């Protein structure tokens, strides 16, 4: 959208719509999770809507993304099919992956979300390989890969960054720094959280977005992507500070566990980016967005509830192509 030269207010309502939609879906999951209809781990993005929405606003539909097990936000931001996503969470045959994948493995070639993984950091090199292929074919596709602060400790990020920089590949590395890997804070994992400096050592232009700012994310990503597309830079790196409001996995809050405090979260919750952007819209615009989103989500959950589980024969299909 940033690339589409739309007006600022159009952009704002798009960003709001994207974030509110994710938020509303996630809240809906929270509501029904206790019924045990979703019999699989869910890693919610409540509080972390901005990075996916901001970056995807700067991508074209022909651009490609890779993500993680915390993938609802990215799937929706990239234009994924809400009905098929919810059905997938329910393990239904109408799900994106016929129920074989579940929440942790959302991917959909039709919107060029080309993979997610429950093994941290594994899709990072896939993005690099995809970009290599696209460059090889002379296309100007950009590939964005989303991962957490924890993922950045895996050696594969460094190997991938080195290779992407070496071959000047159009990969946008997006690190959603939510300060925790499960319950482990940054200070138990890195001597200093200077992710940009680490990537700059490979000659990769790097920028840090503070406080979950969706507009800045969209704009900065847009600049970087523009330069990539023109071949002026190879890969780029974007660190986005964000915050997970819910437990690492599951629908609950986890202040009681003691690994982080409610006080620490307070500014993030008070400064809620969904609300902050929502406030900047005309009330009637916002209301109509909200209404449309809520209808859509209700429908998706209803369809998922009504849908059938895969048949027993599905167990043995799809191992090979």
């Amino acid at each position, binding site marked *: 959208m940033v690339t589409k030269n739309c007006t600022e207010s159009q952009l704002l309502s798009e960003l709001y719509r994207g974030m509110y939609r994710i938020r509303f879906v996630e809240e809906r999951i929270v509501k029904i*999770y206790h019924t*045990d209809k979703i*019999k*699989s*781990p*869910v890693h919610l993005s409540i509080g972390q809507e901005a990075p996916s929405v901001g970056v995807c606003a700067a991508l074209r539909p022909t651009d490609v993304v890779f993500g993680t097990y915390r993938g609802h936000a990215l799937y929706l931001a990239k234009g994924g099919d809400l009905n098929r996503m919810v059905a997938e969470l329910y*393990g*239904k045959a109408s*799900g994106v992956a016929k*129920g*074989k*994948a*579940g*929440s*942790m*493995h959302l991917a959909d070639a039709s919107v060029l979300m080309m993979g997610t*993984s*429950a*093994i*941290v*950091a594994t899709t990072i090199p896939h993005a690099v390989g995809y970009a290599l292929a696209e460059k090889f074919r002379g296309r100007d596709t950009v590939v964005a890969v989303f991962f957490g602060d*924890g*993922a950045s*400790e*895996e*050696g594969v990020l460094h190997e991938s960054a080195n290779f992407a920089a070496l071959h000047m590949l159009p990969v946008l590395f997006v690190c959603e720094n939510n300060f925790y*890997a*499960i*319950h*482990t804070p940054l200070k*138990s*994992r*890195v001597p200093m959280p200077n992710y940009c400096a680490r990537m700059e050592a490979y000659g990769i232009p790097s920028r840090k977005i503070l406080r979950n700012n969706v507009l800045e994310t969209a704009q900065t990503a847009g600049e970087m992507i523009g330069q990539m597309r023109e071949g002026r830079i190879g890969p780029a790196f974007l660190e986005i500070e964000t915050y997970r409001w819910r*437990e690492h*996995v*599951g*629908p*609950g809050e986890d202040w009681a*566990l*003691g*690994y982080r405090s409610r006080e620490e979260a307070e500014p993030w919750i008070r400064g809620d980016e969904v609300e902050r952007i929502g406030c900047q819209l005309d009330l009637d615009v916002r209301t109509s967005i909200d209404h449309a989103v809520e209808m859509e989500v209700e429908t998706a959950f209803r369809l998922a509830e009504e849908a059938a*589980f*895969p048949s*027993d024969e*599905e*167990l*043995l299909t*799809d*191992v090979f192509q």
Partner: protein
Amino acid sequence: MSFSNAVRELSYADALYEATVQEMERDDNVFVFGLGVDDPKGMYGTTKDLHHRFGAKRNFDTPLSEDAMTGVAIGAALAGMRPIHVHQRMDFLLLCMNQLINVAAKWSYMFGGAFRVPLVVRAIVGRSWGQGAQHSQSLHAHFMHVPGIKVVAPTTPHDAKGCMIAAIRDNNPVIVVEHRMLYSNRGMVPSEPYTVEFGKARVLTQGGDLTIVAISHMVVEAVRASHHLAEVGIHAEVIDPVSLSPLDAQTIQTSVQKTRRLLVVDHSWVETSAASEIVALVAESLNGDPGVRFKRMGFAPVPCPTTKPLENLFYPNSRTIAQAGYRLVTNREDWVPEGKEANEIAEFKGPF
């Protein structure tokens, strides 16, 4: 911790915890590390307060760097420490194969016996609540294939404690396979430290009609299967190898010589598996002795699906095991035992 040797009921998880505490008390060189070991959930309680009891230096969290952390453990072991490296999912070991197989398993031999790598790797196997393809693997076969590394898969609280202590005291790398469906199992455990000798299988039920060797959580299902079978007059001898490498071929062979039928129920895929190994070992040992029948069972030959109806079909269970045993004994398929999903599976709830 009192050492009057009371025998109490403990859960599998608590037995592992007790083993670790006792060894940490005994030997200052023992330390525990891995992602989340000191977190509020404490690895199902198996590492819960070790950092409070023994200090943060002896139970600490790490960055997400499985490959290097395995190397760090090996380096510490070379310096005389006895690291226990904990993995929340055995699947993550695929990031450590180079250090485990190219290094840990080879260091003693390659340097002519001059080095030792006393390393314990705790590999927790996931199942249920939609773990899916990447959080449910049990890769013991990979380690059984390679000389220089031991593999144990205790199934009772008693063996969990004894194997853990033996693994910690072992001067070689040992992979301890722990199935998360076993953690809440309860059983009698002596309070004093003791070791369970590697390479000794346990005969859990006696029977003359059929030998069932089962691995990890499948032991629990196999014992249940033996009850189903008893209802139709078939008496199965259920064997828990406990230790997979070294493997107690003798106990299994002796049983098969008696029963003439061997059903092996693995907790992994069947092809090139521990089950293959056990069948091959017995087949070789028979030296042409006629009339023994064999059957392997394990995961369906697919990655583990997430959705519950398919996940249910993916794993063997007490009923399918009993059916296979019935068929092996009778050559018939005219019986379907009644029963329902095992409690530990049905009751396991997420979100984790």
